[in-house]
């Protein structure tokens, strides 16, 4: 199970990082969302993974650490609000600047637009 969780977090982080490095705002917002998912899973697993543990409290069963669950709840709420803000800001930037590039202007890769 450790391997599975670690792989999930790793893949989410890798894809999130790749997407945040893209040039347009939509992939960047998606990348930030994936990063937020990865981070939530990561905090969750920082309280150690237990198999067959009690969900909350039960006699004779190992009890999971409740603090990471509280932290993750806070992180989810904040991450959700921040993503909403990023989406709105991207739409505003699309309207104000006329394109959806993160730099506010599209430069073609050979930069031939400037030379002509």
């Amino acid at each position, binding site marked *: 199970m450790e391997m599975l969780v670690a792989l999930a977090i790793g893949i989410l982080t890798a894809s999130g990082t790749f997407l945040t490095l893209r040039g347009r705002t939509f992939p960047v917002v998606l990348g930030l969302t994936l990063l937020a998912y990865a*981070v939530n899973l990561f905090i969750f697993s920082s309280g150690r993974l237990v198999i067959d543990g009690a969900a909350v409290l039960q006699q004779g069963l190992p009890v999971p650490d409740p603090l990471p669950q509280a932290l993750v709840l806070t992180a989810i709420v904040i991450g959700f*609000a921040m993503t909403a803000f990023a989406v709105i800001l991207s739409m505003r930037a699309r309207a104000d*600047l006329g394109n959806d590039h993160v730099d506010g202007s599209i430069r073609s890769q050979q930069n031939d637009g400037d030379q002509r």
Partner: protein
Amino acid sequence: MSHLPILPILIPMLAGILLLLPPLRTTLTRQRIASLVSAGINLLVAVVLLNQSATGEVAVYAVGDWHPPYGIVLIADRLSALMLLLTAILLFAALLYASAGEDETGRFFYPLMMFQALGINGAFLTGDLFNLFVFFEILLIASYSLLIHGGGKHKTRAAVHYVFLNLVGSAIFLFALGVVYGSIGSLNMADMALRVRELSGAELELAKVGGLLLLVVFGLKAAMLPLQFWLPRTYATAPGPVVALFAILTKVGIYCMMRVHGMIFGDYAGDIADLIQPWLWATAILTIAIGAIGALSSPSLKRLAGHLVIVSVGTLLSALAINTPAAISAALYYAAHSTLAGAALFLVSELISEQRGGALDMIVRSRPVAQPVALGITFFITALALIGMPPFSGLSVSSW
């Protein structure tokens, strides 16, 4: 238990909420008066708090009377009281400046300033690492909205970079918190400082990773060398009074480094003592250099001021790198001086750019300003204060 330490959080929060409600939100005059009054009360509380902690007494406030390590504590010692006072002065000055007309350019200016102050005050007071993250997010979301206050192409463009960069920063902060909690087993700063000494083996290495990730996060806030590129453009486009309050934001990063890396990963941290010292010297010197180069090549006054902020961050980092009590006290004095002088320079540049029509604050020839004498004298005084000429506070830092 005295309730004084929580007031700097409660006052801006209540003021911000009340400013959004009918009796106060209806007219701009009411908003101005109400926000100035609450900023004044905030200033008063900060003075009392500094006065109280000047004896060296550390006020520990357990929120909801939940005692550590289970509850969240607020800590008001000399360092945090000094930073609170600095924030309160900046907030009052910025609101006063804004009530001259800047507040008419967009909606919800005063509530947002209050929430910004709430986040900053909370970050200075909290003694819990996760709570620090929450206050960081509060101050960030207020700063996102304040940055685009008034609207316009340039502001939106700068805000996109600023917001995305800080969202990535928040994700790294959370990763760091996960690592730190997983290895050290606590998020209360004082508790962590005790536990970190007993770590060994894999846990020690993990704690090291967590501590260095935190350095990246605070470095992003403080505009430390590889993470400083966002600052000049962001500060150059934001409205004057907003930037005046933003002048304290880089110091929030420095303050957190002092707290987290000075206290938890500091001199007494056992096997990982002085975790960030090997990194600080190089970054500090390079930050000063890049700020100075940027200042020399700035096309406009506000960008120049932004690069000077980077220089002051580098100076503070170098004092942290020396890491002696004398250096740290000089750094604290310099932090107060550079924040106030930097904020003043931003406000003066805003005044100058308002009177110059299309040329704004660009360093080019343009039509004469309406008040050449007044503006010239103000700018001269601000510049003198910045370079630390004798009658101003900067001199005593250089002689330290």
